[in-house]
């Protein structure tokens, strides 16, 4: 009889079963539930952005602009960029995995400001509402960069509501960053020193700094652009004495660091997954931790490489070129250290690890082509071509989305207490990986051959590569759709797991149940060792079962 009472007790306590009403979800202060609110929202936005991408790829199957008018095509790529950048990639890892994991990894009951955390989500939704309104009302055609004076003087589309929406969304990002940063400083469990933090936490910390320092600048920039559009202020409009290049400086002062808001937390995920499935401690912990700091610093001094042909002086271009090369150092530290972590590791090929391999390969291609683009001469040659499109998709999608998929699979048992179906997941991973390469690799070739971006039509010789790209896009879409289907399926029919199915280290695995209780831990954990201490764990026989017994006994 006593055996059956244990799971019942656990059932009563976990955060998912703590309440079933709508109110218990939409007015929750629990960081774990807020993570779910974000997960649902960003998944919806991902598919909205994906639909725009699919429509663009359909148009580009033929050289003529036959499916959409060029004006409508402009709206498609603009909305694709806006939705994907601001509403999916930027919040994906921090707002979903970060929200769920940060207090668990720190041994805290919650983030420092739970109400602010919920507010961030509502602010995000308010911003998303304006963007969706814009889509319904007829779209925007400026490109996601809103370059002036086109956006403020010429464009007849709905610039003001979408700019207002992004202005609002920016505050969601700022509030999350502020909350995380303060949480990391003040809410760590006893014994959890800075150099015992999981590297995921270091990544979130670095991301928070960029969010805090960068996002206010784009907020005020978009505010000025919006006011200029309404009142004809003249700050950016050369016809009124303003300077359009100033807009680009202010825009990229945020939007380049934003690339690191996207990729750095993804790299944090890779640290956790690669150590677990190699059964080894991370190689070069401090080097990786400090590489995050390097990213923060350099993210703010390389914005000018977006403006090499925008009218800045050749000396500025040269300096930004040199600084851009230096970013490669920090990426290289991480990629080499992950590879070194795998070396002589005991690697298992579960889905999260497959995504790590995918990440390594794709990010490598994205990063190396970044070095090409740092070279002034080459950059001028491929400026605004599909080479650039392919490069940033390899970094953002190949990097961030692969890392996000790795993370969501890795922590899915912790979030839900259920395991996803492994073989289908592996199949979906192969679809995503091959679909991705088929979509974007031809675009490197297209760009090198001279096909410009943002055009609905092209000359005949580019058609074969474009058809390949579109075909790859459909495989990619199929892979992601399959992912959502089996994840939702596993919520209801997945196999129940114990607290630590991967036998991973970290407070979230070793001290919390799956799914965790409302206040995360039964008692505040005390940390006595460095992270990723996998070597130590192998001495304990049947370690996970022992642990779950211990957790259940305490409950």
């Amino acid at each position: 009889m006593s055996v059956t009472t244990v799971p019942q007790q656990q059932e009563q306590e976990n955060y998912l079963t703590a309440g079933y009403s709508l109110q218990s979800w939409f007015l929750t202060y629990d960081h774990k539930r807020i993570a779910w609110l974000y997960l649902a929202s960003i998944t919806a936005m991902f598919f909205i952005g994906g639909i725009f991408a699919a429509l663009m790829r359909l148009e580009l199957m033929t050289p003529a602009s036959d499916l959409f008018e060029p004006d409508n095509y402009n709206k498609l790529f603009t909305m694709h960029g806006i939705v994907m950048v601001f509403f999916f990639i930027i919040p994906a890892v921090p707002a979903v995995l970060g929200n769920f994991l940060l207090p668990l990894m720190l041994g805290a009951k919650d983030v420092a400001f739970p109400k602010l955390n919920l507010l961030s989500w509502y602010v995000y939704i308010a911003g998303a509402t304006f963007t969706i309104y814009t889509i319904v009302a007829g779209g925007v055609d400026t490109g996601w960069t809103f370059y002036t004076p086109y956006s403020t003087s010429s464009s007849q589309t709905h610039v003001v509501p979408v700019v207002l929406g992004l202005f609002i969304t920016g505050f969601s990002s700022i509030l999350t960053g502020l909350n995380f940063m303060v949480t990391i400083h003040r809410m760590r469990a006893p014994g959890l020193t800075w150099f015992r933090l999981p590297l995921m936490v270091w990544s979130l910390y670095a991301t928070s700094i960029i969010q805090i320092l960068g996002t206010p600048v784009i907020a005020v920039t978009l505010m000025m652009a919006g006011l200029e559009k309404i009142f004809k202020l003249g700050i950016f409009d050369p016809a009124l004495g303003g300077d359009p290049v100033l807009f680009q400086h202010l825009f990229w002062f945020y939007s380049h660091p934003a690339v690191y808001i996207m990729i750095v937390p993804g790299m944090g995920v890779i640290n956790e997954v690669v150590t677990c499935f190699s059964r080894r401690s991370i190689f070069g912990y401090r080097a990786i931790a400090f590489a995050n700091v390097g990213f923060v610093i350099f993210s703010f001094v390389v914005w000018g490489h977006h403006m090499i042909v925008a009218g800045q002086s050749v000396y500025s271009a040269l300096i930004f070129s040199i600084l851009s090369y230096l970013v490669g150092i920090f990426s290289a530290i991480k990629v080499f250290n992950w590879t070194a972590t795998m070396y002589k590791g005991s690697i298992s090929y579960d889905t999260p690890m497959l995504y790590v391999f995918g990440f390594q390969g794709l990010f490598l291609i994205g990063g190396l082509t970044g070095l090409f683009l740092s070279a002034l001469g080459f950059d001028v040659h491929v400026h605004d071509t599909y080479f650039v499109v392919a490069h940033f998709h390899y970094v953002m999608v190949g990097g961030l989305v692969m890392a996000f998929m790795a993370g969501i699979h890795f922590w899915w048992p912790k979030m839900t207490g259920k395991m996803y179906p492994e073989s289908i997941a592996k199949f979906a991973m192969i679809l995503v990986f091959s679909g991705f390469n088929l979509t974007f690799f031809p675009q490197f070739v297209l760009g090198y051959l001279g096909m410009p971006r943002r055009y609905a039509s092209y000359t005949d010789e580019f058609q074969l590569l474009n058809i390949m790209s579109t075909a790859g896009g459909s495989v990619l879409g199929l892979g992601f759709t399959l992912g959502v289907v089996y994840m939702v399926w596993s919520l209801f029919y997945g196999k129940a797991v114990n607290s630590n199915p991967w036998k991973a280290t970290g407070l979230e695995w070793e001290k919390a149940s799956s799914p965790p209780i409302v206040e995360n831990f039964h008692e505040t954990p005390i940390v006595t060792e460095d992270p990723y201490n996998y070597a130590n764990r192998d001495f304990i026989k049947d370690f996970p079962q022992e642990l779950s017994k211990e957790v259940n006994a305490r409950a």
Partner: protein
Amino acid sequence: MPVHSDHAAGHHPALAHHFQDLDQQKDTTWLAMWVFLATEIMFFGGLFLAYVIYRSTYPDAFAIASNALDVKMGLGNTFVLIISSFTMAMSVYSAQVGKKTNLIAFLILTLILGGTFLGVKYFEYKDKFEHGLVPGRHFDFASHHDPKTGAAIEHGASSSSHGESSHSETGDKKPLREIQIFFSLYFAMTGLHAFHMIIGAGLLIWLIGLSAKNTFSKEYNSPVELVGLYWHFVDIVWIFLFPLLYLIGRHHH
């Protein structure tokens, strides 16, 4: 909703469930406020950058435009704000030593001074609206000054000639545009500052309500201290805005 499972009896009522003690809670909120003020610096920073760039690109137009501002009102407001910073500091002190009556009195004084600032701002804005100094379609600087010298600014002089037309005749259209940029930045910067003042006034009213309900004591007064920090920050922004917009370049003419 979080379950307060291990909430030991005797905890301070203001202590949130996820903190160990009041000290940790206070440290956390202080750090958050400083980080928030860092974001505010970056937020205003974009506008200051735009100001610096246009001031150095169009020094003459900015000097002419800045002469059209009312220094007396700006100076008066500067004093009002500095005094309000003092009364705010006194509220924080009163909260720390636990003197409730003084706390409420100083908060109300601060609120009145903040209100005075906004009142003066209202009359300043009204003046600009009446004299066509608001950027946009109806911007009309020409009737207020002589394009040749750029010196004599006659408020209330009802010139029948419209700004745009008189300027196109003298071929002096460009400075007008540049002057308009000054006023764009003037309204953006002072408007954003005034918006922060309004938020601050709301926070003061909230604090007065809490004080009346005996929320604050020697042990727990961080909300007063944090609003104090915010209030001082907003004052400091004005300390930069006033010379930049009203004073620099006046000697030009």
